[in-house]
C-alpha cells in the first residue's frame, strides 16, 4: 500500500525540455519513476532522456495516459500549465515552481478542488513513495523504504531530517512536501489522514515551521483522529517576530502561529517535538 502514488503511477513532466525539467527527469528515471512523457509547447516530437515530448497535456494524455504530473514551469505560466493538467484529467499534480502569484494559486486550487485533483505545492520538493516512485526534486539516495511517513512544510529541512533518519537506518513510506507558499494544495491534515489509513506507515513525522496555524490545526486532528504516533520538528524558534523570512507562510501574524503556540498545541495532542533535526532518529526508534 502507499498514498497518492505508487510504482505503477504514470508520470508526465511539464516543462521537460528546460534545465530543471530535463535534469530532474533523469533523476526521477534513475529513482525508478515511470515517466511516460513530457510536455513542452512547440517541441512535440523531441525526446528527453528517452522520454517522448508532446505539445500539449491533452496530446500526452491521449498517447501515453499519465495519471500524475510534475510542473517545471516558470511562475508566470504555471497557472496555465496547471489548469491544463487538471482539465486534461491529471489526478495528482506536483508544482515545483516558486513565486507563483497568490491570485494564480487561488485559481489553481479552486479549479483543482472542483475536479478532485490532488495538488502538491506549489514551491514544494514534491512527493516520493520511497523506493518506487519519486515525483519531485529531492536527492534520490535519502529516500529508502521504511515504516515512517513524513510530511513537511519546508524542503531542504525535510531532506536534513530524512537524511538523519536514513543515516540511522530508518526509511520512509511516503514523504510529502506541502510547499512553502501561502496557498498550497495538500495540508498537514490531508496527509495525516492518508498516513493513518496506510498500513505500511507506523510512525508519522511532521516538519513544520512558524507562521500560520496549520500545525495547530493538525494538532487538533491528531488528538481527535490519529491512532499512530506522531513526532514533529518545528523551524523558527529563534526567528524575530514579524520579519519576513522568505516563506510568506513564515510571517508571524498577530501573535498566532508562534513557535510556542505550535509546540504547546502539538504537545497537548501527544506529539513530541524535537529540539534539533538530529534528534529525530532517537525519537523514532522506540516507536517502531
Amino acid at each position: 500500500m502507499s498514498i497518492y502514488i505508487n510504482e505503477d503511477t504514470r508520470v508526465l513532466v511539464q516543462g521537460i525540455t528546460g534545465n530543471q525539467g530535463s535534469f530532474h527527469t533523469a533523476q526521477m528515471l534513475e529513482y525508478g519513476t515511470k515517466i511516460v512523457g513530457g510536455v513542452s509547447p512547440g517541441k512535440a516530437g523531441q525526446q528527453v532522456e528517452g522520454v517522448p515530448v508532446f505539445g500539449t497535456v491533452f496530446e500526452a494524455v491521449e498517447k501515453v495516459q499519465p495519471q500524475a504530473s510534475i510542473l517545471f514551469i516558470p511562475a508566470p505560466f504555471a497557472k496555465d500549465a496547471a489548469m491544463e493538467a487538471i482539465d486534461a484529467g491529471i489526478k495528482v499534480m506536483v508544482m515545483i515552481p516558486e513565486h507563483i502569484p497568490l491570485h494564480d494559486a487561488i485559481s489553481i486550487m479552486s479549479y483543482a478542488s472542483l475536479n478532485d485533483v490532488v495538488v502538491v505545492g506549489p514551491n514544494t520538493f514534491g512527493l516520493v513513495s520511497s523506493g518506487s516512485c519519486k515525483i519531485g526534486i529531492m536527492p534520490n539516495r535519502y529516500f529508502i523504504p521504511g515504516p515512517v511517513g513524513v510530511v513537511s512544510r519546508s524542503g531542504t529541512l525535510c531532506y536534513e531530517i530524512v537524511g538523519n533518519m536514513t543515516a540511522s537506518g530508518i526509511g520512509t513510506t511516503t514523504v510529502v512536501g506541502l510547499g512553502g507558499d501561502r496557498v498550497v494544495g495538500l495540508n498537514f491534515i490531508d496527509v495525516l489522514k492518508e498516513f493513518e489509513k496506510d498500513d505500511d506507515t507506523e510512525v508519522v513525522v511532521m516538519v513544520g515551521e512558524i507562521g500560520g496555524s496549520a500545525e495547530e490545526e493538525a494538532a487538533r486532528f491528531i488528538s481527535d483522529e490519529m491512532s499512530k504516533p506522531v513526532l514533529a520538528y518545528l523551524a523558527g524558534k529563534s526567528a524575530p517576530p514579524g520579519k519576513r523570512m522568505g516563506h510568506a507562510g513564515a510571517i508571524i501574524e498577530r501573535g498566532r502561529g508562534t513557535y510556542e503556540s505550535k509546540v504547546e498545541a502539538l504537545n497537548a495532542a501527544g506529539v513530541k517535538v524535537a529540539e534539533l533535526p538530529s534528534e529525530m532518529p532517537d525519537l523514532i526508534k522506540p516507536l517502531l
Partner: protein
Amino acid sequence: MKLYEYMGKELFAEYGIPTPRGKVASSAAEAAAAAEELGEVVIKSQVLSGKRGKSGGIAFATGSEEAEKEAGRILELEVQGMKVEKLLVEEKLAIEQELYLAITVDNGARCPVILASLDGGMDVEEVPEERMIRWPLDISTGLQPYMIREICRLMGVSGEMSKQMLKLLPKLYRLFRELDAELVEINPLASTPDGLVAADAKVTIDDDALYRHPGLPRISEKTALELKAEELNLAYVELGGDIAVMANGAGITMATLDMVQNFGGTPANFLDFGGGAGVEKTSQALELLLGTNPKAILINIFGGITRCDVVADAFVKVKEQGFIDVPVSFRLVGTNETEGRAILERIGISAYETMSDAVKHAVELAREA
C-alpha cells in the same frame, strides 16, 4: 508590498471608492497650504506601521498655522523606527459611525475572504467574532450583489448604507483582484452625512505578482543590504549577531539559526539563497554575507535542486578573489556532493557531513575570533 495610505487612496479614487479630499505634503509649509484650502484637517504621517495614532503620528488642526505646527512636529517623528517623510493632509470628516471592511486571502480555505463589521476603528481586532462577518468567496463565481445584501444583513446594515455597500464593495473587490492584492483594508470606513468614505487605506500587493503591474510604485521597508538582496532575488534579513549564515531553503535556514542559538552562538542574518542557484547568484549571496562584518561564516548546503559542485565552485571563486577573510564552517551534502567536496578540498577546506558539526564549529570559530 505594502503601499502608503496616500497611494492606497489614490488607487481607491481610481476605482471610484469615496475618499476624503486631501493633499500629500512633504513639508510643514505644504501642509499649511493644504489646510488653508481644506479648512479643518487631519494630518497623518505616511509610514507603513499600523500604530501611527498611538505614536503621535496623527494630529488634527484648524487653520494653516496650527497645521504647520503639527506637521512640523510629525515630520520630526520616527514611527516604529521609520522616519516620516510624507504627510497626508485631509479634510476632517463628520464621522457618524466607524465601520470595518477588508478583503484578504484565507490561506487555509485557499480563497479570498471579505471581513466586515459595524465596529470599525482602533480596536477592531477585539471585535467579538459574531460581529465580525467573514464571507469566503469562490473566485470563479466572484462577488455578486446578493452576497453584499447578505453581508449587510449579517452586519446589521440596511437602507441607504446597504445601497452604498452595494456600490462600494464590488469596486474594492475589483481592485483586490485586478491589482493582485494580498490585502485591501478600510479601517475605519466612515459613515458620514455624505455617505460611506474610506477614512484610511491599507493595500498590500503580492510581491510575486508585481511584474504584472509595472504602473504601481515600488516601496520597500528594507535596509540597504536587504534591498541589495532583494535585487538579487535572495531572501535576506539582518539579525545583528556575529555568525553570518547562508543555507538553501527557508526552513533549513531557520533551523540553522535555531541550532546556532541552541549551541550558544548569535546569527548575523537570515540568508536563504533558494533552490537551484547558479554560480553567479551563489557568489552574490556570499558577498552579501560579508556585508555585516561577521566573525565567522556558516554555510549549510543540503543539495536537492541545488548542486553542491556549483556552490563549492562559487565559493572558491569568491575566496580566490580575496573577499573572504573570516573563517568558514562548511557543510555540504546532497546532489553532486562528491564533486563539491573535491572542489573545496583543493583550497584546503574539508566540509562537514552533518549540520550539527558544522554549526558547532561555526560557534567555536566566532568565539575564538
